[in-house]
């Protein structure tokens, strides 16, 4: 059965979020912020590398829609709307047309641009 939800559990709480609702995840020190469609943000007490591993393990069929960008971002490729390499700008747009402007290195954005171009062929 296709697993469509990511479960992040700690000793105190549990977060279960549909992969399709994850816009991006940003690191915040030793923690991560989950930004979801509709504008909800939730902090989880795991490092970004640990969350990356959870995605790979729990969502094997869906994990390739997520891309790690540098040390501080994981994005959902399905919501990429605009990339401007020189401005180091990455804009995601969710289903309700909310815009989320992110920043990453030029090298990483160039690689992301090439990846999306390659996937669209």
């Amino acid at each position: 059965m296709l697993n469509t939800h990511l479960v992040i559990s700690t000793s105190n709480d549990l977060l279960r979020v549909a992969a399709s609702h994850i816009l991006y995840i940003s690191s915040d020190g030793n923690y991560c912020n989950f930004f979801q469609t509709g504008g909800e943000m939730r902090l989880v007490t795991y490092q970004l590398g640990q969350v990356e591993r959870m995605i790979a393990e729990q969502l094997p069929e869906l994990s390739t829609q997520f891309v790690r960008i540098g040390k501080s971002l994981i994005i959902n490729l399905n919501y990429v709307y605009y990339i401007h390499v020189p401005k180091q700008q990455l804009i995601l747009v969710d289903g309700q047309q909310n815009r989320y402007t992110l920043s990453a290195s030029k090298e990483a954005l160039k690689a992301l641009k090439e990846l999306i171009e390659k996937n669209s062929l």
Partner: protein
Amino acid sequence: MIREENISDSEIRVIGGSNLQPTPTFPWRVVAVSLAVIAAVVAVVCLLWPKAPEQLPEQGIFEPETNYASLDNAPKTHPLQGWLASLDSITAVGTITKDTTVNDIPLRIYVPMNSTPRLEIGYGALDNRERNILFFQAADVRADNKKIVGAFVLRGQPLSWGLSKRGYCAIIDGKVTVGVADNSPLFEQATEHGGYFFRQYPLVDNGRLVENELKNKSIRRGLCEIDGHIAVVATQSTESLHDFAQALVDIGVSNAIYLVGSTAQGWSMDAEGNGTKMGLWDERPYKNISFIVWPLTSDI
């Protein structure tokens, strides 16, 4: 298999993908290892090289002779010592200010008298300015999601977590602590005692300047601990963070963290009730903006 942290800011990788993994880049690792080996060889050579006897600086005609042995034991003095000692700490009200110039940097020092600060969220402090003797913007607001930057506790309630800046201010049971630490137990104490906590760039740590990455020049403000007083020091000209921090060290500040400068709102009111606005008061775009506020004693 994912290599958990094996990625640089110039790379991307598809999670779980088998055909993509960090994007090919210049072999920095090879270069870094090579440089490390060269540096190690140079360090070993330097350590083994015979050293010249250590020399004290040559004495000049126009410089008084210095007794280097006694310098470390000399009592620490600074330009504000006499002024701070003269402040009437029992009956004084309002904010006492003093202008001084250090290293060609004009500074204004604000010392709020007989008031314990608290943190406030939103722009209420501006509207109630007559009830406050001093306030300045405290924590920063994130550019991407407009949330509070770094850990933040408001009257015992944690509103934000994370370590993006190492400087901190804790206000617990009326005691204000300014310091520098990655992890501070004062965060938890603030939540347990109904206190306050926020983070900002560190400027001075136990009398030593702390370097920061911000290099531009701007109006700078700092929350400072000096001779047992908590004061706010602001530049009257645009300065780099480094020069500002050095000026704080030179006037005798023992610990200091940054407060939002530039056009951020601020307010001070003297003993006669004369108030001074600072920054741009018409712009109020951030609901998560925070202020450190010293209320009138009667309002505490």
